[in-house]
Structures are given as structure tokens and as C-alpha cells.
């Protein structure tokens, strides 16, 4: 496998949930490929952006159903992988950081043990070795006093520190791909920037690919290399982040226009009028 081969190939991904009135499709035919880059997936609530991220890890809760023409990680078909193989891939090859560390960390386990556990499950290292690695990792996410933080419980740390701990835990087995699902939406802007800087550095140092799921168009445009814009379960536009201002799809243009800006005089914002034709891509 060469370095320029795609890390992830997704073709015609569909996620559907049964409801009383039939199947409701959350993701309707999403296709993209990902190399060692930062790919942003942007959309409003209900656009299917989070479900796209989770279906890659096969974490769509039952009774949801995932189907795709191709869903391959480094050429390996993820939909055909056995549960055991999938557990190997999770964490070790593909990791995920979620929105709010308040909920995504186990409240009755010290953060240190949670990080060490993530390391041990894939490396079969001893307890002492795992602890040493966990402390190193805490230092790598710029936590000043790793020894003390190691013994803390999640409710004893701030949101920003919690998210760094989450990143440490996810990156400790050295995965190839990180899915970040609104990783900074629960944080204040300044803390948000610091956490993003850590993610940015670690990604480039380790040559990881990243899928960054967010509702924040500005943030994604400034952080990622490439952007997919999702609407109602479909990708309506895909472009380089630096060329977002030149987006052509009316939905993307409408979203951009509806954002208030500090440097613009106050006045009515253009309101997005949704065209049913967008539903068909």
C-alpha cells in the first residue's frame, strides 16, 4: 500500500432508520475519498453529517441500517468485517472524538485508567508501561501536570481539559484516521482554538487523516483542507476550504450569506429559501 492511496473510500453510503411510517433515510448516497488530509463535513442539524461519521465506525445504533456500494478503509471492506476485526480497527486504526467530554468520559473511572485502557486493549502492554504511555500522551496534549490529572475523575476537570483528555485517549493507540464529531462545540471560543491547535499539531506530526464534522462553516473553512457540504443526507457541494467563498451551490451560498459578520454593518440578513430540488442533490 502506497502513501498516496486513499485512506478511506466511501461510495453511495446510506443510513436508514425504520419508523412507524416506513424507513427514514438519514444519509442518502454519500460518496467521498479521503487521503492524509483534514476533511470537513458541514451541515445543519439533521443533515446526516454525524451519522456519516458514525457509520464509518459501524456505530449506528440498532435498528438503524447502513448500506454502501463501497466503504473501505485502506482497501479493506468495513461493512464485511467481522465484529472481532471491527474491534481491532476501532481505536487502533480509526478513532473518534465526540462533542462533550462531560458525557463521553466514563464518570466512575479515573481519566488515567481510561487512557491506559485504550492503550492496553490494542497493545497488550503491562499496567506500568500503559501508565507511562498515558502520562506521555497527557503531556502531548499539553496538560501541565499529567501525574495529577491522571488520578482525576472526569467531573473534576474543565471542559477544555476534558476534551484534551479525550484526544489523548483516542490518539494513544496511534490510529490512521480520526473522526472528530463537533469536538469543540461545547467549548468557549478561546479554548476551542487551543484544542484545535493540539489536534492540528498531532495530526500533522503523525500523518493522520481527519474527518471533522461541524455545523460551523467559518471554523471548518479555516481549519480543514477540504469541505463537504451536506443537506438532507446528501453532499450538495465539495470544495477546497480556501475556495469556499467561491462555492456555487445555492444552499452553500445561502448558508454563507445568512452568517452575521462582525465587519458588516447591521441590517437584515438574507434568508435561506429552500429549494425542493436540493433534496435530489
Amino acid at each position, binding site marked *: 500500500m502506497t502513501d498516496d492511496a486513499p485512506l478511506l473510500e466511501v461510495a453511495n453510503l446510506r443510513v436508514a432508520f425504520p419508523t412507524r411510517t416506513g424507513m427514514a433515510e438519514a444519509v442518502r448516497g454519500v460518496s467521498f475519498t479521503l487521503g492524509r488530509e483534514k476533511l470537513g463535513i458541514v451541515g445543519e442539524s439533521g443533515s446526516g453529517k454525524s451519522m456519516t461519521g458514525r457509520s464509518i465506525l459501524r456505530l449506528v445504533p440498532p435498528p438503524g441500517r447502513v448500506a454502501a456500494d463501497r466503504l473501505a478503509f485502506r482497501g479493506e471492506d468495513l461493512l464485511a468485517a467481522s465484529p472481532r476485526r471491527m474491534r481491532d480497527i476501532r481505536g487502533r486504526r480509526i478513532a473518534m472524538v465526540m462533542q462533550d467530554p462531560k*458525557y463521553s*468520559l466514563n464518570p466512575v473511572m479515573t481519566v488515567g485508567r481510561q487512557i491506559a485502557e485504550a492503550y492496553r486493549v490494542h497493545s497488550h502492554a503491562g499496567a506500568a508501561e500503559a501508565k507511562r504511555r498515558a502520562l506521555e500522551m497527557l503531556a502531548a496534549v499539553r496538560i501541565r501536570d499529567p501525574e495529577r490529572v491522571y488520578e482525576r475523575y472526569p467531573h473534576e476537570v474543565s471542559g477544555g481539559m476534558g476534551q484534551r483528555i479525550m484526544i489523548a485517549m483516542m490518539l494513544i493507540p496511534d490510529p490512521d484516521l480520526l473522526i472528530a464529531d463537533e469536538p469543540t462545540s461545547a467549548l468557549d471560543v478561546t479554548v476551542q482554538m487551543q484544542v484545535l491547535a493540539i489536534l492540528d499539531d498531532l495530526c500533522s506530526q503523525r500523518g493522520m487523516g481527519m474527518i471533522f464534522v461541524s455545523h460551523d462553516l467559518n471554523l471548518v473553512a479555516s481549519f480543514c483542507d477540504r469541505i463537504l457540504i451536506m443537506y438532507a443526507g446528501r453532499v450538495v457541494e465539495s470544495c477546497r476550504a480556501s475556495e469556499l467563498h467561491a462555492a456555487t451551490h445555492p444552499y452553500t451560498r445561502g448558508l454563507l450569506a445568512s452568517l452575521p459578520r462582525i465587519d458588516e454593518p447591521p441590517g437584515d440578513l438574507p434568508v435561506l429559501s429552500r429549494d425542493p430540488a436540493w433534496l435530489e442533490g
Partner: protein
Amino acid sequence: MPTLKRGLTLLVTVAATLLGLLLVTFLIGRVVPIDPVLSALGDRASAESYAQMRTQLGLDLPLWQQFLRYVGDVLEGDLGTSVLTSRPVLEDVLRVFPATMELATVAVVIGAVLGVPAGVFAATHRGRWPDHAIRLLGLIGHSVPIFWLGLMALLLFYAKLDWAPGPGRVDVFYEGMADPVTGIVTVDALLAGETDIFWNALHHLLLPSAILGLYSVAYIARMTRGFMLDQLRQEYITTARVKGLSETRVVWRHALGNIAVPLITVIALSYASLLEGSVLTETVFAWPGLGLYITNSLLSADMNAVLGGTLVVGAVFIALNLLSDLLYRLLDPRAR
């Protein structure tokens, strides 16, 4: 909050609860239409000795003084004398209590050992047939009158199939053969090295404790399922799966770790309700425990014994509550 202050609050709470319990038993004792003087002296007492006894029992004092006196007596371990056995109630209660404890303890062990895994299994198979089956079994367990089930079980396993021994703690033949050290026959038999008696006693214990345990299996399984479903929805469970942990570890380590504390409370509560449920079971199985003692006293209007027994069960309840509270503070990092 500082530990000292928290400890004091806890102490005050326990004291208030005990006092409340005493107040209730005291008031019940006052409204009984039975004259305590007559029941102490018999019907043919002279007016003079009647008045003397009345003063002696403190019945001429104002109500609040009577209550203080009652509290003082109880704190000294004086629960009055049983009319039925003519012995101090405390002595009676201490003699019969181990039998009830033996029954309830075996029952709660059955309840926890079967109930927790059943609840976890139901939760992890939510909406599929194991869940429905466990749920239905739980509802059935909650709906059976336990005394009736005991009767029917005796009918089937003792009278028809002859698998179980009859009522009582041991066969008549063995009765009184092992020294009552702890009052728990199985333990006493083992201490005395009498394996025959041990097996016989265990055999006798099996049916009543299984029936008593059935109720607590139903309760514990149902609560476990509810707690577990709550936890399995949480985001940290997704985190554990993303880390690549096996489903067993996700469920039994991460999710169960988070419900351990409420589960302990549930098990303590069901232990308490088993002590109580023994009133009916003991009657059916002629099990000479506290329940049977209270029932017999009730039927012969022996109020001292009834209230004394109530007080002891109440005190055990309060102790169990206190214990689960302490464990909660000890085990949950968020409560420390």
C-alpha cells in the same frame, strides 16, 4: 462539604428516623383498645392494685413524658414483657431473629445472583425475545401472592412429588441437636461438625428461600434492566466501543461500573423487604422466625411483642438504609 459536617448530618438523620419510628410504635401502643394494666394484672385485679400498677407503668403521666419514658426504656433494651411467652420481648426477638435472617439472606443472594445478570441480559437484548421473557417473568414474580405460592409449592414439592421436606427448619428428629451458637441452624450445624444436620437444614431452607427469592429476582432484574438501559444510551459507552473494547467489557465493566452504586441500594432495599415478606412466608412454612413471632403475637393481642418486633425490623431497615448511603459515598467518586 467537609466530611465532619456530612457525618453529623447523617447522624442527625438516623437519630431523627429512629425517633420517628419510636413515636409511631408509641402512638400505636396508645390507641390499642387493650388495657395494658389489665393485661399485666389479669381481669380480677382489685381497684387498689389497679391504680398502683397504673402509676407503676407511668400511665398517669402526660403523654410526652410517657413517650420520653418509652424512649428511655427502649434505649436500655427494655421492650416490655411478652404476655404470650412471659419473657422479655427483646430476649424473644433475639432468639427468633437469626432464623429470619438466614431465610432472607439466602433469598437475597438468590435474588442478586439471578436478578442482576437477568436484568443486564434483558437490557442488552432490548426489544427482542429474551427481554420480553425476562420482563414478563418479572411481572409475574411481582403479581404472585407469596403465601399462596408457598402453599402451592408445599402441595407440589412436598405432598405430591416428595422432593422437599415439610415445614420447619430441620426434621423433628434433628431438632435441638446442634448447639445454638449463632441461632442460624446451618451455621451451627457446621460449627458442631454435624454434616447430616447441615444438609437437612439446607434442604429445609431451599424451598422457602427460593420462593422468597423469586420476588427479589423480579425486583432486582427489573431495576437492573432500567439502570442498564439508561447507561447504554450514554455517550461514554460509545467512547468505550470506539476504543475497540469487547462488548463484554463495555457492558460488564463500563456500564455495570456506573450502576453498581444504585444497584447496591436496590439490593439493600430488597433485603429489607424480604425481612418483611418473611412474615407471610414463615407462617406458611412454620418457620420459627420473627415473622411468625409477630403473627402469633398479633393473633393473641400481645401488643408488647408486636411493637417490639416492629421496632426491631424498623431498626434493621434504618441500618440497611444507612449502610447503602455510606456505600454510595464510598463508591461513587462524584459523591466524595
